[in-house]
């Protein structure tokens, strides 16, 4: 199994604060990898650093064995990386259809993917002309994921998909992520360990801006000491 994404020792500053102080990780092709860690450990910043939204000042990032650090976000994204940010970042003033259309990288992207997207999230079809503001949290989350599916992305970076969602909807979301992971590689930040452990095959733990442990999720689930040590009980 080759690695789709590799990160070597990146350091990232936000303003005056040193947020990432050595993060290394690898995301194998075709897997779901979960980034775990306590609040404020630097998980979201890791995702943003991959995309160049908070560019790392040191270290290397390789996507399909091609270095992508130092490039601008839109160039990185255009290589085939989709981003589903925390709090979804749905464009409130755009309709659902526009929210999807804006993600097109080539003309007709949306038309080609329409069927797949609506089969994953049938709700969106019903809401297609509503402005983003009027969507509920779960619908926004679906739209955010759908938006990342419009272009031909190989890797999806998903930040806290289950945050603030009711259990039923989380179930639905997990099913959708599992289904789309058959063709995409996913790097996931998830606070809810249950969700993470059921979705992901691999894990990376980040603490205080460092990647401290990574491996197979199956091993982690059998290792309550590590869970307690790094993630608290929750």
């Amino acid at each position, binding site marked *: 199994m080759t690695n789709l994404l590799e990160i070597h020792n990146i350091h990232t500053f936000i303003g005056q604060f040193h947020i990432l102080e050595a993060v290394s990780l690898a995301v194998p092709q075709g897997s779901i990898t979960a980034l775990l860690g306590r609040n404020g450990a630097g998980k979201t910043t890791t995702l943003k650093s991959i995309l160049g*939204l908070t560019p790392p000042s040191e270290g290397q990032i390789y996507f399909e064995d091609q270095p992508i650090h130092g490039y601008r976000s839109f160039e990185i994204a255009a290589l085939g990386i989709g981003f589903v940010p925390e709090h979804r970042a749905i464009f409130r003033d755009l309709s659902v259809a526009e929210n999807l259309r804006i993600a097109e990288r080539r003309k007709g992207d949306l038309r080609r993917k329409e069927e797949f997207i609506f089969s994953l999230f049938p709700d969106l079809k019903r809401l297609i002309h509503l402005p983003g503001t009027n969507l509920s949290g779960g619908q926004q989350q679906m739209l955010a994921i759908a938006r990342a599916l419009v272009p031909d992305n190989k890797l999806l970076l998903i930040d806290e998909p289950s945050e603030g969602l009711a259990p039923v909807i989380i179930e639905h979301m997990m099913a959708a992520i599992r289904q789309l992971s058959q063709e995409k590689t996913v790097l996931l930040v998830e606070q809810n360990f249950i969700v993470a452990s059921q979705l992901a095959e691999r894990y990376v733990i980040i603490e205080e801006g460092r990647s401290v442990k990574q491996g197979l999720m199956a091993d982690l689930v059998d290792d309550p000491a590590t869970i307690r040590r790094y993630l608290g009980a929750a």
Partner: protein
Amino acid sequence: MLRKYRLQLITLAVLAVLFIMAIQGMSAKDGLTIVIRGLSVGAVTFLVASGLSLIFGLMDVLNLAHGTLFMLGAYAGWTIYVRPDTVVDLIPPLALLLVGLVLMPLWPVLLGRLGRMPAAVWGWLGLAMAGVLLLISLPSIPIAAWSARDYAQSPVSYAIMLSQGQLQFPPAEATGPLSPAVALGGVLLAGLVLGGSLTVLSQRHRGMRVRGQATPPQSPPKGRRISLSHWERVGVRATAAGLLLLAGLLVLALNDNLTAWLLGLGTNWLFGLALIGGTLTAAALGGLMEMTLIRPLYDRPIYQLMMTLGLAVVGHELVVALWGRPEFTMPKPALFNGVGDGCPAESWAAWLELHCSTILVLGGRIRVYNEIFLIIVGLVVLVAVSLLLQRSRLGMIIRAGVQDSDMVEALGINVRRVFTLVFALGAGLAGLGGVLAAPSIGLSPLMGESVLLMALIALAIGGLTSFPGAAVGSVLVGLMEQFIIKYGQIGIPLPFLEEPFKPSPTLVPASTVLLMVIILLAMPQGLFGRTE
């Protein structure tokens, strides 16, 4: 819906009542004239304010140099209109300069071969070098100039001569020692260097944002795969550059014929060209400004504001240096300038025949250009920009970028290019406004500052980021101004004064500022601003 906009509706109702009360004492003729004139001023203000609001909405830059762009557009348009010979002389060097800019996409490839991007300093050095090259080369290219000091050769006298229909141009002269061929080569080189340095500067910024200059950001990695489509694009660019070069040389060869042809077009067509030229000049300057001077400051909003303030001053001085201090006029095109028998026209049918400068409506004289044409253009722009925002992909990106430009970038869209585009668009609108306003308000180096003030007030009233707000605010400002002017003639009876108070024209802008302060005190976000 009603509850949501309650405050806005009340304010507008109060203003409407005030305006109606103000009209009460006047004849229908006076009232109509004031409203139409107010709308006309509002239309010009809107052209500036709309650009300001687009730019502020998307990138949080309050461009205090926008009035200057308005002014530069007006002066450029005037030059095309009154001195086409100068413009024709300027085309070849401009075309050669553009060649370098068109070829800009080549630079990343070349620089990529170097392995690492040169430091930003090289970009700035390159810019300076291009400037020096231009300073050396340009004087050696024959360009028909005028003198700000010699009255017979000044823009003022040309404006007068044109209005009397007796333009005579002095031959173009070169003042530099170089041969024209060498000079043109110098300009071409300057264009290439300019393109290169702009590339370096635009590639650098993201890195600088991270940690400042001390730790140079990483160089783009070597061995980046260049897709075929990239080479295709380069090919298109190269062809375009070649055509530009050819066009420039062609204009150089056919200089006199082209001038004669342009003059033969007549004022209507020339005015059209002036509109296009003024808009493009302002747009190009705006785009360039954004790329070089505003972009490095996106993380320092206060400095951005200071920068645009400084650019306003620089632009003002530039106009003084090139066109001189005195005010001068821009005659209206023939379409709106008919006089003599049958004028003012009594009906639209008569107007279509005679193209009178004024028309009688309800017994009052209405100036067709100022009070009808300008309003129509204002409406057209309002509709066009609204359509652009609501229907086009660019508009979609702008609306999305207003909310979260990082997310737009993360979708794979080059937001920085969108920024430059919107800045150029806004500047172009201001330039268009400048050319349009020039025949009615005349040209002076102070026109920028006063229109900027009006536009800022309109914007603040309407809500800084709201495009419809800019329109409403502009109309309010225009109406307010006309009413105060009218009351300057008839006087306002004040309780403590025996004679009615007649505000002089200089006081007019003060009244609009007061309107702004009052509205902002009631609604800090303006009429249509977001409340957060």
